[in-house]
């Protein structure tokens, strides 16, 4: 009984952590699903979101205005990247990979040139910071708000994809882009919009996580690896797969952090190996023709 009582805070912490992981992965998943491009610049755009928010705060923008405006500015960068990517569509996936890898390096270097290599801080406003007691244990208030923000964004994105005509177009584009084009939908514009949305989500995740992780030019690497892992774990293209995989990774990392701390980072990779061994297409991935 004592063990379970001790375990409970770690379980809840794992879920909260998992929601943040899911938030990082969603934008990545959207671009992979619709564009069939593995966007290796996702991590750098994640970092750029945090830096742009810091810059806006430096220009005396109110906190909430800065965190709303920063993802829009990063989305513009994403749109430029999408325009650069156009010549790679329909070609070997390696072209897209190389281009986004190059973009990741360029964005990180631009961050270094503009903001320097040192640590920056994005402090949450007083009403979101501080600590609270949960079951006799001190927990950061901001972490709770960040998890709630992650839930809200996940639900909003789901509603957008499921309940709006734009969402239907995006899903159709992911399923069969040629058919979408044949129906008279402007696929070029659709792809541009999806890339902008995906990068805005990366920036939002960067801003939400900045007060927890700190802000440094290479912070994107810390985000893109779990994001990639979560997409594979959840099943490429599956919305709820990504959310569930994110939560699963959070729980595994949270619990190993408490009971076998040296395995806490490794645990997510072990989880991936275990799952892919028995279910190669991930939790909610669709069977391929070869598997049928």
């Amino acid at each position, binding site marked *: 009984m004592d063990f379970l009582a001790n375990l409970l805070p770690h379980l809840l912490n794992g879920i909260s952590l998992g929601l943040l992981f899911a938030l990082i992965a969603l934008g990545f998943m959207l671009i992979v699903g619709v564009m069939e491009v593995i966007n290796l610049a996702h991590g750098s755009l994640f970092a750029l979101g945090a830096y742009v928010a810091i810059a806006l705060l430096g220009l005396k923008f109110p906190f909430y205005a800065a965190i709303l405006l920063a993802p829009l500015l990063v989305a513009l960068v994403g749109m430029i990247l999408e325009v650069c990517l156009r010549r790679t569509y329909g070609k070997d996936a390696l072209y897209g990979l190389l281009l986004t890898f190059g973009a990741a390096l360029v964005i990180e270097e631009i961050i270094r040139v503009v903001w320097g290599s040192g640590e920056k801080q994005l402090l949450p406003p007083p009403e979101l910071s501080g600590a609270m007691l949960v079951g006799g244990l001190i*927990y950061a208030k901001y972490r709770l708000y960040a998890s709630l923000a992650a839930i809200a964004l996940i639900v909003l994105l789901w509603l957008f994809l499921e309940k709006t005509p734009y969402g239907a177009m995006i899903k159709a584009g992911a399923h069969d882009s040629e058919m979408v084009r044949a129906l008279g939908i402007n696929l070029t514009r659709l792809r541009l919009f999806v890339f902008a949305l995906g990068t805005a989500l990366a920036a939002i995740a960067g801003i939400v996580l900045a*007060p*927890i*992780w*700190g802000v*440094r030019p290479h912070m994107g690497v*810390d985000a893109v690896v779990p994001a990639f892992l979560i997409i594979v774990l959840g099943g490429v293209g599956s919305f709820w797969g990504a959310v569930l995989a994110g939560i699963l990774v959070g729980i595994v990392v949270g619990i190993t952090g408490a009971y076998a701390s040296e395995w806490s980072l490794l645990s997510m990779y072990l989880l991936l190996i275990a799952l892919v061994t028995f279910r190669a297409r991930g939790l909610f991935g669709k069977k391929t023709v070869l598997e049928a």
Partner: protein
Amino acid sequence: MKRRKLLQMLAAGAAFYGPWKVHHAWAQAGQKKPLVIGLTMDASGQYGASGMDERLGAMLAIREFNEKGGVLGRRIEALHMDTETTPATGSRVAERMITRNDAAFLIGAVHSGVANAISQVAQKYGTVFFNTNSSSPTESGRDCHRVKFVWDGNGTNFNHAIVKNAMRVSGKNWLLLTNDYVWGHNTSKSTRALVEANGGKVVEELMVPQNTRDFSSFLLKIQQIKPNVIATAVGGDDIKALRQQVVQTKLDRAYAWINNQQDWPDVYGLGPDAVFGVFGTTWYYRLDLPGVKEFVAKYQKTFPGVQIKVPGNVFLNGYLATRELLRVVEEAGTTNNLAVIKKLEGRKMSARERMQHHDAWIDPATHQVQQTIYMASYNAKPAEADDIFKILANVPPQEVVDQDAPKACKLETYESTPSYEA
């Protein structure tokens, strides 16, 4: 006919070259190649920020010597490659610098795994290597080498300065938070030994994998265990993230925190609130000692655009190590590695020269610089924005000597160390 013409040309050439070869400038240009120093410093990864800071320190020392005409009449050329806080990269960079770039000496390391990797390659070629900032006790113990000199205080030195006092003030039940690599392991091992030797108890040791960004599960676990003191051996970007999260949860006020060593780049810019607990360092930019103010002014004049506006311990180690190497080469009158090593072993360095409170020396048995250790904490009354440390005490090197290092260190013989002249 052809032979005669050739001889005429040779004679003409000799007649022209003869007077010139004794002319100083021409002779130098003809004979003296630049002295290449390889800077094996991280520019990315966990210790990227510290690596860049110590690089500036080394560059300042090299610049000072070049302004005086170089060393032994040779211009000094610095060659930097990013060791990426990765031991394998450290080995590759060292191998390349020595075999392809003719680096005469190697300087730089923050991560102990990287330092160890570089020093193995350096020993293979006999290349003198200065480990500037990595402070695992193994660096001057089990992993010491004839060619390697360790410039930072190590985990045991810092523990000697801090542990006893913290036990007396805060209590006997300790929890160790350990970065899961060689420096963390060996620093915590030394903390454990000192705690237990003084009647304390280590109630738990939590390993922190490198590149951990989320410490929430560690912080919850700490609260469930309820230790008196938390001793961290966590460095680089990991300690930055940990500090932020501890402050967010206000656990900095709930427990006594001991951070074995606090490097300046790891705390600079986080704001005064992120500095808590008691920690060790080897220098602070506001020490009231001769030369400190001038040194800070020189740093600010030389590097006006850098983010870290005042120098810290990591920068100073990079500077002092490089300066001392060049001085020794000049004194030895040669770049011969064995001559340089012999000059370094047992070398004494005055407190004034190093801007510390006590004289320092290089232990000939371990090749570690024995120096003043400072105990510091958060400064509640800062004189300016960057004045975030309060120096609590300075401890002479004699009182913090790592007694285990000489037992563990087995330096290679001179005979088995390859000799070279750069």
